[in-house]
């Protein structure tokens, strides 16, 4: 079974639909998304939370579509492009506004490997992270789980163990969390010839559509929570036991996240000291 691993990261893309808490009208939405202070914060999350795990994947054989609006202003667009310039797996795609799912599918479609039988797809918000062995685990688990795919060959791998990093007014905290079918940590293994993409399936209703294998054996994702979040995380239903003092080490090992460095970068972004 040939598996292509493909992620989608949307960086403040002005589009129609998608956001739960943004203005409807595209001009107002663009202005809100491209507010410089907001972009500074989001770039700090992306650089210090999402990017390190991508850059240090133990299996480098994956593609990440980094979708931006074609009009993402400078200096942000340049900074973002420079951050990922050395990573051949990250493909920046600039798009004009359009219906959200359609522009995401249009960005992913040309990068689908025609030789792949299964395209294992995940979404990664710019304030979330995947563990360094994420791609490797996907390949390993899919190779072994081939026989439990559903009728149309689809299977969801739900890596349900992770950390929630919260920015509470500049103070960063990290808490262990066990959560099924959250967007971070959820991988949809879909047959390539089905032509379906990750956003065609609402993650919270995935249980209706395909078999789900929830795995709680390894810490696999980080979800960011902060004032600028589109979908607020109201409560953590369940955590797991880990000494608080161990968490920074685990974040570093599993995700290459430096929590102190991130806190400093976030503070700099807040104060407008992040120019470079």
């Amino acid at each position, binding site marked *: 079974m040939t598996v292509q691993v493909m992620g989608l990261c949307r960086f403040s893309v002005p589009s129609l639909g998608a956001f739960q808490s943004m203005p409807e009208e595209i001009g107002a939405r663009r202005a809100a998304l491209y507010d410089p202070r907001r972009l500074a914060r989001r770039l700090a999350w992306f650089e210090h939370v999402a990017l390190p795990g991508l850059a240090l994947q133990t299996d480098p054989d994956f593609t990440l579509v980094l979708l931006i609006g074609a009009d993402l202003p400078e200096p942000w667009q340049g900074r973002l492009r420079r951050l990922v310039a050395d990573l051949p797996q990250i493909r920046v795609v600039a798009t004009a506004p359009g219906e959200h799912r359609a522009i995401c599918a249009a960005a992913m479609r040309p990068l689908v490997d025609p030789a792949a039988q299964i395209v294992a797809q995940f979404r990664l918000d710019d304030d979330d992270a995947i563990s360094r062995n994420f791609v490797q685990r996907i390949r390993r688990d899919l190779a*072994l789980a081939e026989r439990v795919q559903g009728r149309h060959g689809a299977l969801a791998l739900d890596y349900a163990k992770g950390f929630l990093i919260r920015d509470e007014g500049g103070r960063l905290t990290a808490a262990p969390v066990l959560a099924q079918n959250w967007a971070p940590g959820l991988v949809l293994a879909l047959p390539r010839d089905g032509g379906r993409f990750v956003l065609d399936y609402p993650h919270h209703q995935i249980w209706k559509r395909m078999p789900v294998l*929830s795995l709680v054996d390894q810490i696999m994702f980080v979800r960011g929570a902060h004032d600028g979040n589109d979908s607020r995380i109201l409560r953590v239903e369940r955590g797991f036991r880990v000494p608080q003092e161990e968490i920074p080490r685990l974040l570093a090992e599993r995700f290459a996240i430096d929590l102190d460095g991130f806190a400093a970068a976030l503070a700099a972004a807040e104060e407008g000291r992040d120019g470079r």
Partner: protein
Amino acid sequence: MAAVKDGIRPQIIGLMRFSYPSIGGFAQEAPDIAALEARLYDPARLERRFQLFEKLAMTALLAQSDGDFRMVFLIGRSLPAPWRDRLNDAIAPLKGARVAALAPMQHYLAIRKAFALATSEAASHVTGFRLDDDDALDIDHIARMRRVVAALLPVVGQEVPLVTGCNRGFFLERKAGGNEIYEVVEKTPIGLGLAMTTPRGVSENIFRRNHRFCGQFYNTFTDAEAPAFIRTVHADNDSDPHASGRIEKSRWEEVAPQLEAHFPFTADFLRGF
């Protein structure tokens, strides 16, 4: 006990609590054992339960396409003889049936004892599943369970618990003027047919946690493809009859082909019994 590769020989064991007076197992807790037994062994109640058990649960167990499993019926030692005889008669045709008659004890302890009594020394792993006396499995349930467990043990590892189940099925609501049928897709695992696989000798089993939260404690696989269960909803139900996910009342004629393909019942029978 067909061996799968790597020397893994899982033994499938179902466990059904049949009006067992446990200490602390029922949502509607009775104040003392005597009162609990009086309620559980009320002849009218037992007659109603036997009706569902004999017509639905046992019929579906006997119709399994894969008959290589044990089924343990956990009863109280105090179950009056006529009912115990009736139970023995009902389960006699089922090859793997065993009765575990226990004194009242804490619920999970009794469950562990019952599983232990049924476990074979030859097994490397135990796949223990739960089934209530008023519910029915689809005819491929055991076969699917065996297949899924064999496919997934190499993924999750042989030493840690693996939970497997099916989230698509039917609710059958008993009504005086004709039963109603609902198509259901559960969001969180339904207990019916839910299985936990562990190495033999591990006392943890599928009754350890609230089945709805299994995905937060164990590596958990659920599929929603084949209709895998019929759950009856009736006045005696001990727990909440609502589905966790999608539930739609269906027309009998629309679901009849599915029911008849996956269960040993005709739609007319289910509607009218």
